[in-house]
């Protein structure tokens, strides 16, 4: 313990670095997470169609809570080139151009579709309105190249939804006219031709307080686990230094089990890991709100589960440090391999990029990382208010990893 306390750089790495990481990464990612959660997406809109389609699409976008419709820049109207310029500059992510006569073109398409249902010998039943023949697309979308596919899909889905409603409205109008002309039946206009299917949304949580994931709930546990695993560097370095200085050999000649000495050392680092976790979580509870971010919240009944995950993660990190310290032959080797491997395991485990942003393949790969097991345990506690039984699989995986590390160290030492 004394050795660890004398190693100021090591202590700074274990406590100050993760604290800085939590603050910086949470501040950096806060806006991104808010976009994912609730923040409106600004969309440049040019509506050249002053008819049903254009008006309804713009209204639909405006009424949606997801989009912030921008039709004027600095109080001035803009054209398609100015729109492209704004996207290229990265000021906006998405631009929508609704073509002139888009409504007329849409009506013509619908009428042609209906006409095709009648026998040819009946002759034309509609007079098609004149329109620009080049108007094959009613709407053109411009994207900033760095726009994430999730945002692209978001706007396309919204436009499909709004246009489907307009199509239905136009279709109903045409059929109404047709019924009137052919059968002399007057159909009443209806406003209820959209949202016929009702979707109910609910978070899959049994808790009363339904918590939406945010930057704090991701970053605090993620960097806490990362910091706990960084214990590998001082622990492994210490073991190697002991070997290189001859202290390990001296210890072998002394009464008492060699394993007891390693165990004693492991216990110190295990406790430090727990202290790290408590310290980092306190930052999430009390410091981050001072920077205008959410506060980490936890229900008191989940505290045993939190304690279990912290203990299991600290054990896994200690085990990993022991195995690296046993196998590495120099301090340089252990610090380089230790830090790089922790960074890789962190990246795979969803510390840098949360797993819900990963591809399906990478999500599968992420399950191989012990940092992912710990992170999922924390997620379950902070997002689902999981109890001790629910986080048990993660704790068990981390404990097995710890035991495996000890076994490898033992066999490696014996083999050597």
């Amino acid at each position, binding site marked *: 313990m004394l050795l660890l306390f004398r190693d100021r750089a090591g202590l700074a790495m274990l406590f100050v670095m993760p604290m800085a990481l939590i603050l910086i990464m949470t501040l950096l990612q806060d806006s991104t997470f808010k976009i994912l959660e609730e923040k409106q997406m600004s969309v440049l809109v040019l509506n050249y169609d002053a008819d049903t389609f254009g008006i309804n699409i713009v209204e639909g976008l405006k009424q949606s809570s997801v989009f912030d419709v921008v039709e004027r820049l600095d109080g001035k109207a803009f054209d398609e080139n100015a729109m492209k310029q704004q996207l290229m500059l990265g000021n906006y992510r998405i631009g929508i151009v609704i073509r002139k006569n888009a409504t007329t073109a849409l009506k013509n398409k619908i009428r042609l579709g209906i006409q095709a249902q009648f026998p040819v010998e009946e002759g034309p039943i509609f007079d098609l309105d004149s329109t620009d023949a080049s108007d094959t697309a009613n709407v053109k979308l411009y994207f900033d190249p760095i726009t994430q596919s999730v945002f692209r899909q978001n706007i396309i889905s919204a436009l499909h939804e709004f246009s489907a409603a307009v199509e239905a409205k136009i279709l109903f109008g045409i059929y109404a006219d047709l019924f009137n002309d052919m059968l002399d039946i007057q159909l009443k206009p209806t406003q209820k031709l959209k949202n016929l299917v009702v979707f109910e949304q609910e978070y899959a949580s049994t808790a009363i307080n339904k918590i939406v994931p945010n930057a704090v709930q991701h970053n605090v546990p993620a960097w806490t686990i990362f910091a706990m695993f960084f214990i590998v560097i001082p622990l492994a370095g210490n073991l190697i230094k002991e070997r290189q200085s*001859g202290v390990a050999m001296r210890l072998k000649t002394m009464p008492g089990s060699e394993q007891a000495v390693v165990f004693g050392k492991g216990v110190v680092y295990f406790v430090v890991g727990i202290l790290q976790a408590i310290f980092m979580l306190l930052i999430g509870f009390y410091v981050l709100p001072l920077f205008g971010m959410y506060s980490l919240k936890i229900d008191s009944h989940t505290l045993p589960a939190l304690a279990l995950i912290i203990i299991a993660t600290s054990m896994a990190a200690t085990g990993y440090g022991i195995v690296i310290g046993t196998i590495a032959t120099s301090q340089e080797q252990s610090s380089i391999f230790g830090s790089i491997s922790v960074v890789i395991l962190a990246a795979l485990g969803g510390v840098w990029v949360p797993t819900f942003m990963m591809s399906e393949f990478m999500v599968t790969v992420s399950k191989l990382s012990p940092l992912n097991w710990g992170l999922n345990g924390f997620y379950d506690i902070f997002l689902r208010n999981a109890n001790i039984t629910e986080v048990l699989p993660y704790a068990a995986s981390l404990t097995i990893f710890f035991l495996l590390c000890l076994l490898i160290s033992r066999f490696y030492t014996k083999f050597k």
Partner: protein
Amino acid sequence: MAEQSFIEITGLTKWYKNTTVAAVDQLNLNIDEGEIFGLLGPNGAGKTTTLSILCNQIPFSGGDISINGFSLKRNAMELKKIIGVVPQEIALYDKLTAFENLRFFGNLYGLKGNFLKSRIADCMVNFGLEGKLNKKIDTFSGGMKRRVNLIAGILHKPRILFLDEPTVGIDVQSKTVIIDYLKELNKEGTTILYTSHHMDEAEHFCTRIAIIDQGKIIAKGAPSEMIKLQKGCESLEDIFLHLTGRKLRD
């Protein structure tokens, strides 16, 4: 029935992995209680390997060792309590103070409380290190480190002390303090087995020596008698060169 020696080494053999020559080859040696025994030899002769085996640091491939009637293989734990080891390296935590190092090693030998404190203080005075108790090891000179390194091996007053080149790389003053203290310790009953490259030191310090080369003992006896018996040799160094040759060793 012949009386058993304090340390009995019979047919000791040590093979390292992936080597074609034994580091220690069928070595036989008896050391009596109260002796100061020197194990001398050129680089790579097998001295440190033999000492490491006796200290329980590394396993051996063949043969048998008994110390004070206990088999090293079967009674390692009991033997660890009566031996003291002073390795060639400065086997100390350099970020800890001398006191913190000695307290840690003393605790491992089962020493505790005021007894340990006063024992540490006595040893520090005996080795001219009074006032340095609370200084970190990394601030010490080479000679001071070596003296603390020795204290760590004798805190528990061992019955047998194994020393691997305890005076290497230090000034004459430090060497004299160490040798004088070891002689005192020996007078109090501690059996000493040590390795060295300093022939002159071994000649005057040891009651008996063995010259070892290529894992085998090639000569042993009291230094003065060996010098007397070997024609043309006036010192232990002459005998050493005569027996091991002048060819450089790796």
